[in-house]
């Protein structure tokens, strides 16, 4: 299978690869997927005044999964919480030219965004951070 240039670029030069401390103020963490399925994404956002000022990812998965999460962090930066909610997996598919067999990678990235936002919201609402 040939990869699109954009997938290759994200794979070779991943944007925002790394981690924040989960208990840090304003950090929301989303972890989705499962090792048995062959992909696990961890996506983190750092929020100040309702705006995502930084984002990081770590991904276990194929090149398309890595590219999808790398792209997601790029898109998240500078967006408000509300804007971030609107990122759809189909946007990722289009941007990266993902073939049908790799659509699940984009779904996973959308799930990771949603999970990170939910985690941030939960912390902001004063509940204890989920250890996961």
């Amino acid at each position, binding site marked *: 299978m040939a*990869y699109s240039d954009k997938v*290759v670029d994200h*794979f070779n030069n*991943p944007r925002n*690869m790394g*981690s924040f401390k989960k208990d840090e103020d304003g950090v929301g963490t989303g*972890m*989705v*997927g*499962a*090792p*048995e*399925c*062959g*992909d*696990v*994404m*961890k996506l983190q956002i750092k929020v100040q005044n309702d705006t995502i000022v930084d984002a990081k990812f*770590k*991904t*276990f*998965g*194929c*090149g398309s*999964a*890595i590219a999808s999460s790398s792209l997601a962090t790029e898109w998240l930066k500078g967006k408000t919480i509300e804007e971030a909610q609107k990122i759809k997996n189909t946007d990722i598919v289009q941007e990266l030219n993902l073939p049908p*067999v790799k659509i*699940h990678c984009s*779904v*996973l990235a959308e*799930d990771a965004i949603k*999970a990170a936002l939910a985690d941030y919201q939960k912390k902001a609402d004063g509940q204890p951070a989920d250890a*996961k």
Partner: protein
Amino acid sequence: MKLPIFLDNHSTTPMDPRVLEAMLPYFVEKFGNAASRNHAFGWAAEEAVENARKQIAKLIKADSKEIVFTSGATESDNLAIKGVLEMYKEKGTHIITSSTEHRAVLDTAKSLEAKGLATVTYLPVDKRGMVNPDDVRNAITDKTILISVMLANNEIGTINPVQEIGKIAKEKGILFHCDATQGVGKIPVDVQAMGIDLMSFSAHKIYGPKGVGALYVRKKNPRVRISAQMDGGGHERGMRSGTLPVPLIVGFGKACEICDQEMAKESIRLAAMRDRLEAGIMAALEESYLNGHPTNRLPGNLNISFAYVEGESLLMGMKDIALSSGSACTSATLEPSYVLRALGVGVELAHSSIRFGLGRFNTDEEIDYTITKVIEVVTKLREMSPLYEMAKEGVDLKSVQWAAH
């Protein structure tokens, strides 16, 4: 050193230039039909085919009359299994095979099962990938007509105790088919000593051309009969009709002759390179696991799982080295390797596996490059892996509740 490097010699092999040279006269000058009995063009073609038949038979210690040409090992497997079942169905319709066979055998068996034509026992393998001959013996019923067990596995290279299985088959009067596609030309094969009645193999795995293979069909003790699966002009003693592809057959013969002459030296060289590759990788990368048998395997085979990284991303990171992975992402089915699963390898480690297949034209320099590249890419991808991070933090990944999708 030229990039990309080809380290996928289980999938296919480059043709040996000596093979190509032997084939060339049979395209334009000596183009005759080997079945044309009445003119010089046909005689020249027939002579070339019979010479190749001898070269092929010699490599496996058979008689040249026992070689039936096919389009490749997949056809040979189909012809052997379906042909035996159709011929001997009055005696019984039970077939014994193993769970790590190539899909040409497994899917043939499944298709016969689905049509209600046969019942099939799929034997398990041990954690190194070997079939236990006692399991074969215990699976035999009075309806068993065929045992089909491969010589060497295409993913993990494990070599089966074929000789013992052949002995059991003989003792019980059951035919024994062996898919020897990965073994012929790489390790010594002797159809007499191994008690093999039918054997599939092909040219393109041994530096010959694609599109030609053979089925060995025993002629005496016992005389094996099979029903043709291709009707037509009655070629190959009625077992496989169709005009013989003379240039391909000539190439197949030459490839076998070269293997026969050079196998002893070549296998030592390949095993030494493979061992160096294995040692170089294992010494540098923790939590790398060998899949298959540590010693009883093909000289050019190495299959390793690298924990916490996914196979397809590994292949992508090493794009100037041609390799193969048991990861689901590289297969059409989205299921990780059934061979590794049959060994009891966990799904996550099956996703993380890489198969290295060394061949005649690989060099020490290429192996050194590969060692460096594997270490570099695995290290980089582990840095990127949330699983590796968690493992380093002391999290037991098995205890995590994953949000599976």
